[in-house]
């Protein structure tokens, strides 16, 4: 194949660019459009306790990689307390300590999470031992065994066994055995502990988890004890009240294990209250935060790591390839004539400040006046470089004039003209008047209008919010653009303008 090398190269570039982009979209959750929003939850734990006038230590269990969520942010508000955090396998811990604690104290812990199905991995660790069958006292003993036997006969595996047991245990019209077992426990936690106790009779490994129901505008809420059983492969959570299996979307696992949520040393016991609020945020910022927390090196080396001012420069620079692409399209496929190859892009960049309509008006005015003055200079018979310099000086004076005049007339837009690249203007004027001299007004105006058209189209494309967003967040897409441009470099077909240019070659009435 003639262009095999080129095709392979283009394919490789496309694959690299597209797969990097796909990774960012799928793994890091970067959105493909700038306005997508996602829900974030802010859960806040408020600890209040009274000091006893001496040193105190407060320990709070905090979530660690809660299933179904990804943590975006954590905050500790600790007033006069010193803070230390500890990361453990199952739970994280916040440790507050202060030398002298007097009166009522309040500490806050805040966690911001967002729903994330990727985080819903199987939890396999730690692998527990099989518990020994407890030595139940009578009459509990016969009640447990009779219940377990009933359950076993109606279940297939550990998961269905647990569900069956929970359903029986929660039956509104319980039989005698369940009634007996239920009587022992008064509150929710007791009941969960009782269930663990019963399951131990079947030698099923269990543990207690504390969960928080994510409910918007919840205030003064608390954690609920749930139960998890180990089915030889993974930990499976059950709602002890309903027997429902798994962790629903709105349940945040705060703590794993039966340790107390908060422990206070040297002060009175603390009270913990939870409040929850829901808000929406741009997916982009959520994804950035998440990537920072999961240490993704892809975003680490992205443009987001640059200082904001530099980022803003690249926001503009990265659209230039798009403009170049437009030029290729319009020159090699349509066949438009322009002054200079990429001069229209620079003009398009200047339009950013003036906006399109004003940009076109100002640009045409300046070039028109410039060309007139250039014709006058022609009579003075100046050499090339001094003449170019003179045109440049005149252009700058004209720009200053336009700015002052438009301000006096009350047009704010005239001020933005200062950002026009004056060298480009001077060159355009020079090229235009040379073309005018050598090839006539028609040719000069064609190329002038061509430049303006390419610049306008370039401006529209380069300033498209979505395109600007895409190239900044996914600069690897420019590799795909490069691949397309390389392929277009081997386009040897007719240009649109040639369909007109060669029309006189075709005999009237077509060919036989």
């Amino acid at each position, binding site marked *: 194949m003639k262009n095999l090398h080129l095709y392979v190269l283009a394919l490789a570039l496309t694959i690299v660019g597209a797969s990097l982009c796909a990774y960012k979209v799928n793994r890091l959750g970067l959105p493909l459009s700038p306005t997508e929003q996602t829900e974030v939850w802010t859960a806040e734990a408020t600890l209040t306790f009274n000091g006893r006038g001496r040193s105190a230590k407060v320990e709070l269990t905090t979530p660690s990689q809660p299933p179904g969520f990804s943590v975006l942010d954590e905050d500790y508000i600790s007033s006069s307390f010193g803070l230390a955090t500890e990361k453990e396998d199952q739970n994280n811990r916040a440790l507050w300590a202060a030398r002298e604690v007097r009166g009522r104290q309040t500490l806050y812990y805040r966690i911001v999470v967002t729903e994330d199905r990727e985080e819903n991995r199987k939890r396999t660790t730690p692998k527990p031992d099989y518990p020994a069958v407890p030595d139940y006292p009578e009459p509990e003993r016969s009640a447990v065994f009779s219940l377990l036997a009933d359950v076993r006969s109606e279940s297939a595996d550990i998961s269905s066994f647990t569900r069956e047991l929970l359903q029986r245990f929660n039956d509104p019209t319980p039989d005698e055995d369940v009634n007996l077992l239920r009587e022992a426990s008064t509150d929710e936690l007791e009941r969960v502990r009782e269930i663990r106790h019963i399951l131990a009779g079947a030698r099923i490994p269990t543990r207690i988890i504390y969960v928080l129901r994510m409910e918007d505008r919840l205030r003064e809420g608390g954690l609920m004890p749930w139960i998890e059983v180990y089915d030889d492969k993974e930990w499976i959570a059950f709602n002890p009240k309903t027997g429902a299996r798994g962790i629903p979307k709105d349940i945040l696992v705060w703590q794993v294990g039966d340790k107390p949520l908060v422990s206070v040393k040297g002060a009175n016991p603390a009270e913990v209250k939870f409040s929850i609020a829901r808000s929406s945020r741009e997916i982009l910022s959520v994804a950035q935060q998440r990537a920072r927390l999961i240490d993704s090196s892809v975003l680490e080396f992205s443009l987001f790591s640059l200082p904001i001012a530099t980022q803003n420069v690249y926001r503009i620079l990265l659209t230039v390839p798009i403009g170049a692409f437009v030029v290729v399209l319009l020159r*090699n496929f349509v*066949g438009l004539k322009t002054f200079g190859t990429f001069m229209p892009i620079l003009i398009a960049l200047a339009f950013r400040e003036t906006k399109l309509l004003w940009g076109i008006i100002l640009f045409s005015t300046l070039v028109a006046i410039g060309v007139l003055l250039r014709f006058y200079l022609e009579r003075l*018979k100046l*050499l*090339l*470089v001094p003449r170019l310099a003179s045109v440049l000086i005149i252009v700058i004076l004209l720009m200053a004039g336009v700015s002052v005049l438009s301000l006096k007339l009350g047009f704010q837009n005239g001020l933005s003209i200062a950002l026009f690249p004056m060298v480009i203007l001077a060159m355009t004027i020079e090229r235009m008047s*040379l073309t005018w001299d*050598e*090839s*006539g007004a028609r*040719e000069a105006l064609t190329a002038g209008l061509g430049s303006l058209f390419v610049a306008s189209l370039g401006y529209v494309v380069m300033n498209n919010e979505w395109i600007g967003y895409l190239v900044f967040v996914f600069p690897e897409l420019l590799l795909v653009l490069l691949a397309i441009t390389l392929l277009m*470099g*081997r*386009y*040897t*077909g*007719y*240009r649109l303008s*040639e*369909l*007109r*240019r*060669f*029309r*006189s*070659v*075709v*005999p*009237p*009435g*077509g*060919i036989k």
Partner: protein
Amino acid sequence: MSLIPRRLRLLHRLARRNPPLVMPWTLNRMGLLNMNARNGDYIMRYNQRKFYPLVDDKLQTKRLAIDAGIAVPELYGVIEIEYQVRDLEKIIGDHKDFVIKPAQGSGGNGIMVISGRRGVKYIKSSGIIISAGDVEHFVSNVLSGMYSLGGLPDKAIIEYRVKPHSIFDPVSYQGVPDIRTIVFRGLPIASMVRLPTRQSDGKANLHQGAIGAGIDICTGRTVDGVWFDRVLDEHPDTGNSINGIEIPDWQMQMELAARSYDLTQLGYLGVDIVLDRDLGPLVLEYNARPGLNIQIANQAGLLERLKKVEALTKIPKSASERVELAMELVAKTGNFKSKSAAA
């Protein structure tokens, strides 16, 4: 014809006119070479960059051609730096007429033709009288790169003014007609003569309004001409027929063009030859990126001929054999417009 009402005749003519756009497949079937393919498939493949300076710098071309025994307009002198402009008088010497042009000019720009003198003043070919100062200023402009590729500083060449052969007198308005030949791998495959008009201001440049008339490679006879987009068979200024002019020394011109390949090493080359009244065919300049207009002038595409030459495994060494081979190949393609087809 006279029986048909005037308005109907107009309609009839309009209906016969070509549509504003031609379909690409139509052009493809006619074998029209386009700009992208010319650049990508021919110039880039057959013209090595390192040989470009030989043709882009007319001074180098001239010296090479003289060494190879190819006839060119006599070189009177060269002005390379601003300081030498004062030597202009000395270079011109006794010559009554001469041409000043940039060594690296493009598209026929920046050429001043002086056809005579009146005392200390000069007469331009257009009849306008200018002073020695004007000429010097022009030379300075040339040196500053005003007419040159990329605007780089340039040299000014002062050379013999070609006296056009009388054969073209009936079909040219002032200026010198030149014959452009496309030489592909050393084979001259297409030719046209560019005839100046009043509109082109005596310049032989098609987009400025010169007429391009195709030439049958095999016979050296002109076919219809093209003026801008229009096919015509008579000169718009003189009213004389363009069709069927037999160009003298045709075989010699073809060989001159073919030999240019050995000189320039460029596989896809445009050769511009002028026919001097006294000296015969002279090579005016070479072009490493010859345009596509020759197809319009010939009313025929280049692709078929290019493909035929590309298919050749062996190219003869001698120029005359190559000319013979080219004529054979072109005759076989037979895509020449006969007069009856134009009507």
